[in-house]
């Protein structure tokens, strides 16, 4: 009987189909990855609405304000004080004037008129309405003067 010596002839695996499939998968995940909604903060649970349709034309000059609560890993609210989230930073609405002024200053520096800038407010569904109104009012204080606002909601599929 002929005994094969171990490790001599490795079986030839045809790699082509596997690479085909793997490239298909990569292409799929690349296309489906959403790099645009980077400003969305997971701590904010938006209200749902049927009429909330994504805009057909993307806004050129828009900045997002996320207003929500601090939540634990299960998504339970741990602090009933609403904050505006700027990345890791969190600011109470009452103390947000300086930050908004910086934002307005930025648009002035790059030469964009403030009336062309849309302030997109992503507020948590349980935030007090008066607080959202206060935030809009703060965005219109002297030296800030934003004029266009949009309230965000997630699209609810109609039954």
């Amino acid at each position, binding site marked *: 009987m002929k005994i094969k010596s171990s490790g001599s002839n490795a079986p030839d695996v045809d790699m082509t189909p596997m*690479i085909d499939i793997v490239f298909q998968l990569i292409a799929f995940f690349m296309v489906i990855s959403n790099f645009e909604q980077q400003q969305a903060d997971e701590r904010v649970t938006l209200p749902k609405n*049927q009429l909330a349709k994504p805009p057909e034309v993307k806004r050129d000059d828009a900045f997002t304000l996320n207003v929500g609560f601090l939540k634990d890993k299960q998504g339970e609210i741990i602090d009933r004080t609403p904050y505006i989230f700027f990345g890791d930073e969190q600011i109470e609405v009452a103390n947000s004037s300086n930050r908004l002024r910086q934002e307005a200053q930025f648009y002035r520096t790059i030469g964009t008129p403030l009336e062309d800038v849309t302030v997109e407010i992503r507020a948590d569904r349980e935030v007090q309405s008066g607080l959202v109104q206060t935030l809009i009012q703060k965005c219109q204080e002297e030296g800030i003067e934003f004029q266009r606002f949009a309230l965000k909601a997630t699209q609810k599929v109609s039954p």
Partner: protein
Amino acid sequence: MKIRNRNEGGEKIEVQMAPMIDVVFQLLIFFMLTLKIIEPEGNFDINMPLGAPETSSVTEPDLPPFKVRMEADPATGALSQLLFNGQPMGNDSTAFQRLNLEIFKSVNALKAAGPDALEKQEVEIDPDFGLHYKNIIEAISACSGKMVDGKMVRYISRIKFAPIREEN
């Protein structure tokens, strides 16, 4: 020196697949992990020109804004009463449907009045301070239109806020 493929006669170049597969799998895992399933988000535009709210009530003297008043339960922040031009609409889930119907009737009346009237008409949302924000979105949605067979029929596009009410 080790000479490879001593036994083979032909000059076959072997492509090293292992490093490529390593990199490709790394990429695949990266894209799989970074994938976040985000629901599509939409906007409701709010019309808040500078100088509001003091001067806003006199923008169109002939056309007073529709007033949507929302009262909140001070303890929970839930909607306790929805009023359209002072007329109660209730506080349950059908309240916003009733509001939508009232807006529809008013829009029809405006269309009969003239082509410009509808465009100039404003809705003023006047909520209690503590009211949950989701009710605002419901009210704005009820005023701005209705979905019919997957298409949006627009009612009123000019929506603004009334002056802020004091926190209880």
